[in-house]
């Protein structure tokens, strides 16, 4: 018996043969008693398995599932970031028409970054809500600062993330709230970034591992992180965020491109 006969037998069991293939298999089985025996056994097995009754589900199963879902939703109540509106307002305020405001750019950026740490309760923006703005552009500064900000709304993870690149450093600030362990992976696809410091002001559990261009954080409960990377090059470095819980449930790229003014 060769592989193609095995394949035909298997597919005949699964009702997957064309009429031509069925004729071919019949011919094979006539010539090969061993193959015919195997085919008979497998058909017998299929009949036996088909005779096994499907078990009725317990009557309370559905209500138990819905109760668990309701309980989980209560414990994963979202606590998004108040920075959202602040950044939007700042961006409008520092529009090019207001040239005098450019001088305050650095101060604004500092305020914005400080606000990023203030995670006050608010209404969660929609899943796709996103703001990218350039803050603090000024002729008097040697570099601009670009902030990429995103609130990620996943049913089991409340994650808010702000990425800011400034001369010599990249800051990643985010919060995560999930009763189950959530693994987040930050990958830097370019540049020369080195992990510098890490702070968790939340009250959950977390573990951090960093190697080469990859930072891995496992978070359980409510955590608020600030991670700082030293950056010794002028290359732009996109940050790829992957969230696993336990499989990959979200992936997104955050640009941290900087412009150096002459």
């Amino acid at each position, binding site marked *: 018996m060769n592989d193609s006969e*095995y*394949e035909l037998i*298997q597919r005949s*069991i*699964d009702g*997957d043969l064309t009429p031509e293939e069925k004729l071919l298999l019949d011919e094979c089985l006539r010539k090969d008693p061993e193959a015919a*025996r*195997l085919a*008979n*056994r*497998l058909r*017998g*097995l*299929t009949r*036996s*398995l*088909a*005779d*096994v*009754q*499907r*078990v*009725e*589900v*317990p009557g309370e*199963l*559905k209500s*138990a*599932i*819905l109760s*668990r*879902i309701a309980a*989980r939703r209560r414990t994963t109540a979202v606590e998004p970031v108040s920075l959202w509106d602040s950044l939007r307002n700042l961006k409008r305020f520092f529009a090019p028409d207001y040239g005098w405001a450019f001088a305050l750019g650095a101060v604004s950026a500092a305020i914005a970054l400080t606000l990023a740490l203030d995670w006050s309760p608010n209404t969660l923006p929609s*899943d796709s809500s996103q703001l990218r703005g350039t803050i603090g552009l000024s002729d008097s500064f040697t570099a601009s600062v670009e902030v990429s900000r995103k609130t990620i*709304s*996943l*049913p*089991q993870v409340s994650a808010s993330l702000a990425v800011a690149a400034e001369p010599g450093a990249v800051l990643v600030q985010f919060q995560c709230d999930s009763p189950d362990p959530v693994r987040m992976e930050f990958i830097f696809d370019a540049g020369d970034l080195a992990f510098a410091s890490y702070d968790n002001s939340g009250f959950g559990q977390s573990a951090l591992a960093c190697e080469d261009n990859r930072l891995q954080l496992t978070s359980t409960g409510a955590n608020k992180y600030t991670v700082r990377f030293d950056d010794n090059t002028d290359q732009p470095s996109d940050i790829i965020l992957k969230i696993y*819980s*336990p*499989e990959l*449930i*979200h992936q997104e790229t955050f640009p941290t491109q900087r412009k150096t003014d002459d």
Partner: protein
Amino acid sequence: MSEYGDQELVKDCLNGNTEAFGELIDRYQKPIFNVALRFVNDYDEAQDITQTTFVRAFERLAGFRSELKFFSWLYRIAVNEALNTVKRLRTKEELTEIAGGTPTPEESLCRSELETNIEEALMELQIDYRMAIVMRHFADLSYREMSFVLDIPVKTVKSRLFSARRLLCDILMQRGILAYE
């Protein structure tokens, strides 16, 4: 709501209609429960796997890709949960011990001698083989669907299924459930 397709129910659910998720539970709790039951051969564990599967599905619904079939996606979660359960139970011996315990009234009502033999024979198979048999014969998945659910190539699905069937035949023949000829 029963005339709704799965995709519409998922969409409704994402729009905040939890009743739509209840409809999805109605549709798939029985097949998921039966798959779990054949996999772990324990009524309580099967209930727990089913519950966790739906809770996980609800939590991950926003990540569900509409080009997938909902039930394939659900089975994939169920397989992972079942594997986690098996890991937790650690060894085949522990599972066999559970299987040999006193059946619940519900189990007693549902079991025939054939079913008992098949359940026990399934538990003698390696996990991968058992899962292949369960997915094909109890979940009625196609090769392609099994490929997605088990996260293996179609070619591997076929070879694994073939090996699993032959091994199960041997076990059932030894038990006198299947004829040698």
